[in-house]
């Protein structure tokens, strides 16, 4: 049952061969069994899940079911869920019961999805390994000595281990695509503004975007139909019509122009991964696409730019966590200053503090032009590279990450080496482009993802390519042993 795709489970629910309560109980049982090992959930909401499942079955009995009514799902613990602990994997929010629902959460509920719980993550989404969690690291189901990727590592591991058919994630610099790659599943980060950020606890406002993890591109399309759309509560939400993402999945790839950026195959890329991506390109060629080399010359600047903009925005976004209105407050503060400094010093973990400090420095008097303004200028050059490329090609194909999942603890002592892991994913956030990682092979038993990048609002095209690729490959059907 749990190996089935979301699409297959939806069919099973529709023909009543299984009920939502049965499905929910089955997946909850798997979550309980495997969470000690993987640590992919911070909170399991069994009671509300079963209540939602019951309601979904009732709705179906009355003929009120939508295509996904009754499907179990999991939310990254960065989306606010009313009445349910929402921690962002931080001690700062360990006691935070969100007083409202994020727009994405409301949309999932409206579609009848059953939320099993809140998944583990890097604290405030800052990290690429899920080791920066107040609740402990998440393990990669393919090798529990390795990281699942981050920051949405809990969601990725849960979907990879089939503890849940699909889960939400957020992606600020690769936090959906990189863990999808490391965990052997499909992950899509939509165009900036495609999915509402309301109720998504902000890391870097101009980069953050919500998305999903699934087994297949088809499943991702079904969920995009749920979560995409304009939200008047988010000023940066795009008021652009939402297509039916499932409708174009079977379009032919004939005539499709794919670009391989030479900078994504340069020094630093594991050669076995390079081979896997080249093979994937050949597969797509066989399906009718043409492949050419392109250049994104400012790629090497993406990480430097990102580590100005993201920390700058986060330093300000995280000022609200001050121990006054919610969240962690230090014991017996001497005065106001002490309240602020100790609540924040004790409530935030090391990586969050590092980024707040970098951002504070970059924005402080005398440094603004040299860091922030400069970064915004280079950001535009990076965006322009993509627009230049999209004059010639429809989509860009490359590796999602330079390596497969690394070992737990391997990079924790050197923040900079951790940052470099996001070299292929960060640019798309800077440019606001949609990106998707889908399984494309294995190196030494660990999954490898390939990344498809499209122009703004071209998610349907990415999903179409992913689905066609998955019609002729079975990487996405591989499952880690022991689950």
């Amino acid at each position, binding site marked *: 049952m749990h190996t089935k795709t979301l699409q297959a489970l939806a069919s099973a629910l529709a023909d009543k061969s299984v009920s939502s309560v049965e499905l929910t109980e089955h997946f909850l049982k798997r979550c309980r069994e495997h969470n000690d090992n993987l640590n992919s959930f911070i909170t399991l909401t069994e009671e509300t899940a079963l209540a939602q499942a019951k309601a979904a079955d009732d709705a179906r009995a009355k003929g009120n079911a939508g295509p996904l009514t009754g499907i179990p799902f999991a939310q990254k613990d960065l989306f606010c869920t009313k009445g349910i602990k929402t921690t962002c994997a931080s001690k700062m929010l360990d*006691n935070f*019961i969100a*007083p409202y629902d994020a727009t994405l959460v409301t949309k999932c509920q409206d579609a009848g999805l059953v939320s099993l719980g809140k998944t583990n993550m890097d604290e405030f989404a800052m990290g690429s390994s899920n080791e920066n969690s107040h609740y402990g690291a998440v393990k990669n189901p393919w090798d529990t000595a390795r990281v699942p990727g981050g920051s949405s590592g809990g969601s990725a591991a849960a979907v990879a281990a089939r503890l849940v058919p699909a889960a939400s994630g957020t992606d600020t610099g690769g936090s959906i695509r990189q863990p999808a790659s490391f965990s052997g599943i499909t992950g899509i980060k939509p*165009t*900036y503004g495609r999915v509402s950020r309301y109720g998504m606890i902000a890391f870097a406002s*101009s*980069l953050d975007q919500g998305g999903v993890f699934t087994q297949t591109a088809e499943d991702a399309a079904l969920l995009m139909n749920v979560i995409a759309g304009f939200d*008047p509560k988010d*000023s*940066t939400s*795009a008021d652009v019509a939402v297509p039916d993402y499932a409708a174009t999945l079977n379009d032919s790839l004939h005539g499709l122009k794919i670009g391989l950026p030479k900078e994504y195959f340069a020094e630093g890329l594991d050669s076995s991964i390079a081979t896997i991506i080249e093979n994937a390109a050949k597969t797509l060629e066989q399906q009718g696409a043409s492949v050419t080399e392109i250049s994104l010359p400012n790629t*090497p*600047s993406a990480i*430097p*730019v990102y*580590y100005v903009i993201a920390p700058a925005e986060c*330093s300000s976004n995280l*000022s609200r966590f001050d*121990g*006054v*209105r*919610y*969240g962690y*407050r230090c014991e017996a*503060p*001497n*005065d*106001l200053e*002490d*309240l*602020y*400094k*100790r609540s*924040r*010093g004790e409530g*935030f973990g090391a990586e969050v*503090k*590092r980024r707040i*400090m*970098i951002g*504070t*420095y*970059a924005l*402080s008097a005398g440094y603004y032009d040299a*860091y922030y*303004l*400069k970064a*915004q*200028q*280079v*950001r*535009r*050059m990076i*965006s322009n590279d993509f627009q230049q490329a999209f004059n010639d090609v429809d989509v860009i194909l490359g590796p999602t990450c330079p390596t497969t999942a690394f070992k737990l603890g391997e990079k924790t002592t*050197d*923040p*900079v080496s951790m*940052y470099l892991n996001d070299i292929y994913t960060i640019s798309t*956030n800077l*440019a606001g482009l949609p990106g998707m990682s889908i399984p494309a092979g294995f190196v030494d038993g660990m999954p490898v993802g390939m990344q498809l990048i499209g122009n703004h609002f071209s998610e349907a095209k990415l999903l179409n390519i992913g689905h066609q690729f998955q019609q002729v490959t079975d990487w996405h059907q591989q499952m880690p042993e022991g689950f």
Partner: protein
Amino acid sequence: MSTIDANAVNNIAHLARLAVDNKHIPDLARDLTNILDLVEQMNQIDTQGIEPQAHPLDAKQRLRNDEVTEINQRELFMSIAPETEAGLYLVPKVIDAE
């Protein structure tokens, strides 16, 4: 190259209102310096005449109609607050009365 020394760490930590344990200051200074080294690679790029990009889509602000849409939820909000009294959030004494 910018080097963050202990003094700079203390200044930044104060601006960001972060208590930093003295014993962590050398490590922090090293980490922050390393990150700045990484960041400063962008200084090699000539950005003369390039307009800064603040938002990925270069869109314009939408305006909301002036309508009251929120109801009083004080009880709910205060149920998750560290310390309240008489409908107020409490903090250690603020020195300047305005």
